[in-house]
């Protein structure tokens, strides 16, 4: 399987969008090399706003640019893009339904070295709670590019969650990207694994292990967890013995919480592979953290077995 980096693909796409649409503007809070927006800045200095280490103002400034007819992309690490700026996203952007694109980079535990302050385990909860917000959770680099392109066209606020590290290409058809429907990565009879973001890979790996034990698992990746495709997930859950939601995020307020609400009327057992009410910490690799917080294939299998 080939790999791509979500940040790199996003940066490239941003540059293309800048060439195609004069109204695309980019805001950065001194992390441009990391979020990979700097290429846009080099080609379009007039449309690139370096806002300093001041995320709240960056976000409000973006609201103003949107009010002047622009399509702004704000950039920072997810923990700051969504967390530090939450109030500005809610008040200046959300209540006014402005088409600002908030891009949370190095999301989840992917900034493995920097520890709890830099790892976002609550950004999805914050963004999903804002009425009207579209929350995009691509699983690989090419899907991230497609998601950025789609975000530019959505006439409303969008949160785009990007991981820091290279990821295998899993999204079936990025050319025909559709954020509002689940991408079924594998069919199965017994259980349904629902994933967002980087968890698609672990879920596919888990499905393979489960198959060896005689358990047939379907895997559905959600390009967007909000709006949540409730009808389709309920239909996929129909007749299954269990549904397990897998996310690199707190068990509170993200995919699992929204999914459990959607499945309230479906007679199926529901399980969760997510961070259990805990902050992150430093480690020497992303994989090490995913194992430590029980977010890997082995733990998905264990959750499935516990439900059957």
């Amino acid at each position, binding site marked *: 399987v080939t790999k791509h980096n979500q940040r790199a693909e996003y940066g490239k796409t941003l540059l293309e969008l800048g060439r195609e649409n004069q109204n695309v503007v980019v805001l950065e809070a001194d992390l441009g090399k990391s979020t990979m927006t700097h290429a846009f800045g080099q080609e379009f200095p007039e449309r690139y706003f370096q806002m300093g280490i001041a995320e709240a103002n960056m976000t409000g*400034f973006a609201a103003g640019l949107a009010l002047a007819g622009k399509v702004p992309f704000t950039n920072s690490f997810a923990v700051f893009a969504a967390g530090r700026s939450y*109030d500005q996203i809610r008040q*200046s952007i959300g209540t006014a339904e402005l088409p600002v694109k908030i891009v949370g980079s190095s999301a989840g535990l992917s900034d493995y070295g920097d520890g709890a302050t830099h790892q976002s385990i609550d950004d999805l909860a914050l963004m999903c709670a804002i009425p009207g917000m579209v929350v995009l959770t691509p699983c690989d680099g090419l899907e991230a590019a497609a998601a950025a392109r789609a975000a530019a066209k959505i006439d409303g606020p969008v949160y785009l969650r990007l991981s820091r590290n290279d990821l295998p290409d899993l999204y079936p058809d990025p050319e025909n990207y559709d954020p509002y429907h689940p991408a079924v990565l594998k069919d199965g009879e017994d259980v349904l694994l629902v994933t967002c973001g980087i968890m698609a890979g672990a879920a596919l790996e888990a499905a393979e292990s489960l198959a060896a034990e005689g358990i047939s698992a379907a895997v559905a990746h959600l390009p967007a967890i909000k709006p949540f495709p409730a009808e389709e997930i309920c239909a996929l859950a129909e007749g299954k013995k269990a549904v397990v939601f897998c996310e690199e995020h707190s068990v509170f307020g993200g995919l699992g919480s929204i999914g459990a609400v959607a499945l309230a009327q479906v007679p199926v057992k529901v399980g969760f592979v997510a961070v259990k009410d805990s902050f992150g910490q430093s480690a020497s690799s992303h994989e090490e953290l995913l194992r430590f917080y029980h977010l890997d294939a082995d733990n998905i299998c264990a959750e499935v077995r516990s439900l059957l």
Partner: protein
Amino acid sequence: MQEKIARLARLADRLRLDVVEMIGVGKVGHLGGSCSLAEITAVLYGEVMCTQGEQRDRFLLSKGHAAPIQYAALAECGIIDRSLFAGLKTLGNPLQGHPDRRKLAGIEGNTGSLGQGVSMACGMAAGLRLDGSPARVYAVVGDGELAEGQLWEAFMSAARYRLDNLCVIVDRNHLQATAPTAELFSIENISAKFAAFGFHVIETDGHNVESLLAAFAEAAATKGKPTVVIAETVKGKGIPFAENQVGFHNSALTAEQYEQAVAVLRERLGDAQ
């Protein structure tokens, strides 16, 4: 000129009368901070700003709780209908407690969560400049609001991007929701702070129409940096019992107070009944 000054001074009192009528009897409303802005609002909407079309000047009320004075001005300009006044802050009425662009024409951005309006104004000013628009952006902040840190981030960015199409107005009425600003929190030396943040600073009497006209003309003529107009005002101005009273930040009028306020304003407007 004298005629213009008289017209705008009269307009300010008419806006005050609208505010009093909008708030009415027994309903809580932001009377004090609306009245301190009456002349500023009258001068901007009644003279300085182009209020219609793509190239209109933009007005953002960062101290969004003073919405009634903006609603009065919008009606004056024919942008909204006066019949909405009676339903201020009632379910389904577009006159929300704080300005909401989704619900009401003439509102440029959703403000009122204090500290956020100037960031928006800066982004607007930058966006309009990208398009080569001649429009100017006016953002009104309260003096108590200056405690919000986001404002100072915004002021820095206004100077960084040399937003000379931006004019920030400080409604320096010396009172905030629960106490005088001098007692509550240190926001003193406002002019020096703005100068240090890269602004062209104009201090003026916020109730003197002629001084305000001169201030906004000077702001428009200032190039290469943003301007702040620090407008010395009186909270509750024009309504004798409410002037300089912390209690009239957001409170209800009794029937007696209401009649008194209306009578004073009608008398000044020369149409006492």
